[in-house]
């Protein structure tokens, strides 16, 4: 209803991920909806354990064997990934949807050269010669800011630093020219100075190649820097979705407001003043969960919060799951 269909690359509806554990069924992802347009950078932000990594794995079909995924649909450029047979899904992986992981130190096979691992990413999907693959690898390594790119092909992962390895991972993700890249906290494990460089790199490459990116992070600072749109996740649900400027200007969900108030803002936060924290803890997601998961910590909690909160449209591109939100009179929608 809110996005013109032809530019819609990824359309996820009611995605759920459940994990059987010793103590019961863990509902890691509890029915989330989100969309990504072509060439758009969507940041999925939330604290540890909110289900954002599970979401990324669910999209790629790389969940652990015991996990159960269900969805109304996961439409990628018209194809429903949720109902796609594994062989066809595997053909898409790496070719049209690529993924970058959090730990550059362990994400590359220590026994093979970088060139081998880069070229294999391309040759698994396209009929190209080894030299063509190498050409592309060198090109992408250079674009990713890896010095002496041609020599690197012969090197092994343990010979590179974390930051360089992550650049290699980025180049590897781009080998087949994917339409979508899912980046699961790619800068979290890096030094702060390198983080900034990698962020900038991802932003540039995304713009240059027109790739859509789902960027997962827990850091609102990162979101401010690179996002086009933001989806805030809490306890397995997406509680707020908005373009980035809109989210920071008019946060509508109590959790988002709480998050923003935790961060010191230059110019606004007075030195010596206390940073706010959100009281309470995330509820357990094992066993049935009813009503709003944020209710036990919310400043605006009320009677209606025992029911699943509806999706409220605060603005054309801005949705919130909260009964307290003020719907825009132009774009209100009935409960999901």
């Amino acid at each position, binding site marked *: 209803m809110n996005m013109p269909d032809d530019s819609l690359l990824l359309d996820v509806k009611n995605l759920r991920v459940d994990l059987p554990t010793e103590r019961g069924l863990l509902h890691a992802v509890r029915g989330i909806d989100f969309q990504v347009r072509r060439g758009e950078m969507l940041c999925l932000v939330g604290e540890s354990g909110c289900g954002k990594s599970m979401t990324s794995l669910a999209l*790629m079909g*790389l969940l652990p064997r015991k996990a159960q995924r269900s969805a109304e649909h996961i439409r990628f450029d018209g194809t429903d990934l949720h109902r796609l047979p594994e062989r066809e899904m*595997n*053909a*898409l*992986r*790496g*070719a049209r949807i*690529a*993924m970058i*992981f959090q*730990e550059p130190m*362990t*994400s*590359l*096979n*220590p*026994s*093979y050269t970088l060139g081998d691992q880069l070229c*294999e*990413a391309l040759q*698994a*999907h396209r009929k190209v010669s080894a030299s063509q693959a190498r050409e592309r690898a060198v090109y992408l390594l250079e674009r990713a800011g890896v010095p002496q790119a041609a020599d690197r092909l012969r090197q*092994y992962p*343990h*010979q590179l630093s974390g930051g360089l390895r992550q650049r290699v*991972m980025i180049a*590897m993700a781009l080998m087949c020219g994917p339409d979508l890249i899912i980046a699961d906290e790619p800068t979290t494990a890096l030094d702060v100075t390198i983080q900034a460089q990698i962020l900038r790199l991802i932003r540039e490459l995304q713009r240059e190649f027109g790739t859509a990116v789902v960027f997962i992070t827990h850091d609102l600072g990162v979101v401010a820097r690179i996002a086009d749109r933001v989806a805030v996740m809490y306890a397995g649900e997406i509680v707020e979705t908005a373009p980035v400027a809109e989210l920071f200007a008019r946060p509508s969900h109590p959790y988002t407001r709480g998050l923003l108030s935790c961060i010191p803002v230059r110019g606004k936060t007075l030195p010596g003043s206390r940073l706010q924290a959100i009281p309470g803890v995330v509820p357990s997601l094992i066993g049935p969960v009813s009503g709003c998961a944020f209710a036990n910590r919310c400043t605006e909690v009320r009677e209606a919060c025992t029911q699943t909160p509806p999706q409220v449209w605060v603005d054309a591109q801005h949705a919130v799951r909260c009964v307290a939100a003020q719907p825009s009179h132009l774009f209100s929608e009935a409960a999901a």
Partner: protein
Amino acid sequence: MLSYVFRRLLVGFSVMLTVAIVSFMLLHLSGDLATAIAGPESSAADVEKVRVQYGLDRPMAAQFADWLGAAVRLDFGRSFYFQNTVMELVGERLPVTLKLGGVALLLAVIVAIPLGVLAAIYRDSWVDRLSLLVAVVGQAMPNFWFALSLILVFAVGLKWLPVAGNTSWQHFILPAIALGYYAMPSLMRLTRAGMLDVLGSDYIRTARAKGLSPARVVFKHALRNAIIPVMALAAVELGFMLGGSVVIESVYSLQGLGQLAWDSISRNDYPVVQAVVLIIAVFYIGLTFVADVLNAALDPRMRTR
């Protein structure tokens, strides 16, 4: 890396020396050799004659020094029973045992590795359970009994293979199975454990995310990293097989080193026994050395500096 190799070599040599001492002392101290050689029927005078003849009246240390000095030159003296020198006898029999051990290890590995890989991929499935069952039952059977049963079933019952001797390659099949089956369970379990370990690692997740075919993920990426400890264990198991070949070779009359050792023990032919114990120990030490080096090479800190 080099210093590690050097240190291991040093330890290996000193262990060889110790083994030589131990086996020498074992034979010379656990009974009166002279009496044993001369035989239970002989008189005291005969025993004394034997004692002087074989130099058994000299101090132990001197006897050992002599023996060791010669052993280093591969001169283990002459057999008491045969006319040949010990080295000649060993030279005849060693290739048979090595062939047997090699084939036995090959068979064990051919079964163990694929089984272990499958058990890891299809963890907790019937394949996994079946392979663990095979492993646990395999390790319970005594090897001499298994060897005899194989003969009963395949040589006598089905008449597919010969019973004894070592002339053709068919003669090696049953003994190789009887010798190798005991190593199969531990190799399989190590493969399975290694694969499970590796399959859970981040770089495998990356390989899957690249859309590589499952076969390529397993064989190119996973197995390559999981296999090295298995190769190391295989080397050690070969060492055990060489030591344990006594029983199998006797049952199948293979005229290998193990059978030579056994016959010599029965005949009190001690120069041969001493030599064989030392030789087998040397092989074992060499193989464990290879295994250690393999495992060390795996450590990325040791590689390309």
